[in-house]
């Protein structure tokens, strides 16, 4: 397959994951609403919000970096997604996974958030600045157990390539990392709770304290871009976790089922808990998940 075809299919799969990520967002809002005893918004509400945000007629900018914030964010989201194989064994849905490994993907996860922090900082609103500092502090904290878990995987499979990690988990479901290296999976899933920004780790975007967090000043199409990224980045994260810990997927149905249930973990926890303070959540991340990660690394390095 030549490069042009590759790019063509990568964009198709990007479209698929965007739609699925946004639909998942809609489903999640619906589930939250049902837990709270109401009907909730329609499942397609995130799409309408994006259209609405892009159809706003005026937009206020605060400078070049302010423009670039959402661009960095979506670049981070697309970058994360582009180096993950979506369907194992499929020539069409493998993106550029042969050229990058899990470290590159982790870099892109960081990249988007840092770019967003720069852009939001230029917004000039004190809430943006406070929320950026909290968000980056919390992000650094949850990257620790996630990184430990990835190191443990690298020791286990003797590779950093996601495709090879998925290949090693094929065969029976007992080959999944979930069963072969449960400690690393638990550490990484707790880190994912932090990444998804649902309760109890939602302080950064908490409306009651520092409303909305970094995107306080973002409006109109900037917000539309950020909402689109929520679909892409959310989908990419789920696909990454599925690949690393849950044996990947060989067809789209498997992908949809697995990512849905991975996402539901955040939802179940999120609906039942209040949120941590920043320092409490950092303390939490650096305690139990980090300990689990270290144990799993030690287990496979000895």
């Amino acid at each position, binding site marked *: 397959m030549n490069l042009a075809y590759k790019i063509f299919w990568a964009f198709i799969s990007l479209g698929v994951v965007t739609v699925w990520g946004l639909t998942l967002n809609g489903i999640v809002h619906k589930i939250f609403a049902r837990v709270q005893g109401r009907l909730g918004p329609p499942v397609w*509400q995130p799409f309408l919000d994006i259209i609405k945000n892009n159809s706003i*007629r005026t937009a206020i900018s605060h400078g070049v970096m302010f423009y670039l914030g959402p661009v960095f964010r979506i670049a981070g989201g697309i970058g994360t997604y582009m180096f993950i194989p979506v369907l194992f064994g499929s020539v069409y849905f493998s993106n550029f996974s042969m050229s990058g490994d899990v470290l590159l993907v982790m870099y892109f996860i960081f990249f988007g958030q840092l770019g967003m922090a720069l852009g939001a900082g230029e917004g000039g609103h004190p809430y943006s600045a406070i929320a950026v500092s909290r968000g980056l502090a919390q992000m650094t904290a949850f990257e620790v157990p996630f990184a430990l878990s990835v190191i443990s995987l690298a020791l286990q499979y003797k590779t950093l390539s996601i495709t090879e990690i998925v290949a090693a988990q094929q065969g029976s479901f007992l080959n999944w990392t979930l069963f072969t290296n449960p400690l690393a999976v638990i550490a990484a899933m707790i880190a994912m709770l932090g990444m998804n920004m649902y309760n109890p780790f939602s302080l950064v975007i908490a409306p009651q304290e520092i409303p909305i967090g970094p995107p306080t000043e973002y409006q109109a199409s900037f*917000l539309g871009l950020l909402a689109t990224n929520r679909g892409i980045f959310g989908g990419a994260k789920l696909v990454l976790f599925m690949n690393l810990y849950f044996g990947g997927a060989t067809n789209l149905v498997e992908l949809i089922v697995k990512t849905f249930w991975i996402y539901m973990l955040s939802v179940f926890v999120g609906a039942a808990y209040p949120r941590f303070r920043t320092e409490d959540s950092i303390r939490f991340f650096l305690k139990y998940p980090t300990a689990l990660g270290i144990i799993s690394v030690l287990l496979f390095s000895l």
Partner: protein
Amino acid sequence: MSDIEIKDNPDIKSELQTPPEPGYSEWRKDENTLYNDGLPEEEKDWFCDARPQKARKSVQVIENFLNWARSQSLWILAFGTGCGAIELRPLVTSRYDISRLGMQPRPTPRQANLIMIGGYVSIKTLKRIVRSYEQMQGPKFVVAVCSCAINGGMYWDSYNTVKRIDEYIPVDVYVTGCMPRPEAVLAGFNKLKELIKAGKAEGQNLYIERFDWYKENQKKVIKDWNMPDYNW
């Protein structure tokens, strides 16, 4: 109490006491700049002094589609300006649940399209309402709930509440009653949706069109005007 009676935006033109003057008011330098007189001298550089311009519309077909999308995703500014805010809580919870209609409260004016004026507006709040309204990005809509926002209501002789909110910001839909029931407010929101779909809720452009008139009214009651003439 609380009859469900929704009025269309009364044509403000017919009620204008003074038509917008062709010349420049004393607080405007020229056609495109604002004086920002209320600001101290050293702060004037920090604020934009451009006069807001009317927003362009797209082609009618696209505009119709966008209007439909706008009507399906109204984000309310979470600003409880008066007693009417108490009915906002039942509205977002399970009994009435406005999220069914694609509406959600939004804590920052930058991301909200709809401001709900909940009842009486004191002068101190009016200043914040004007500020929040101008910070919202258009097309933006205003729903005035409770009688007090329409004609002063119970507080018709109070020294600290304005009697007509439509002199200070353009209002799309009024909901009468003291308190209007949540159903009445919901009906008001549905009416607003119809107006948006029909392309009649152009409050943002109306505000820009009659900018001088609105500003003069605002400055008449807000005695300590210490903010820029237009809050970008």
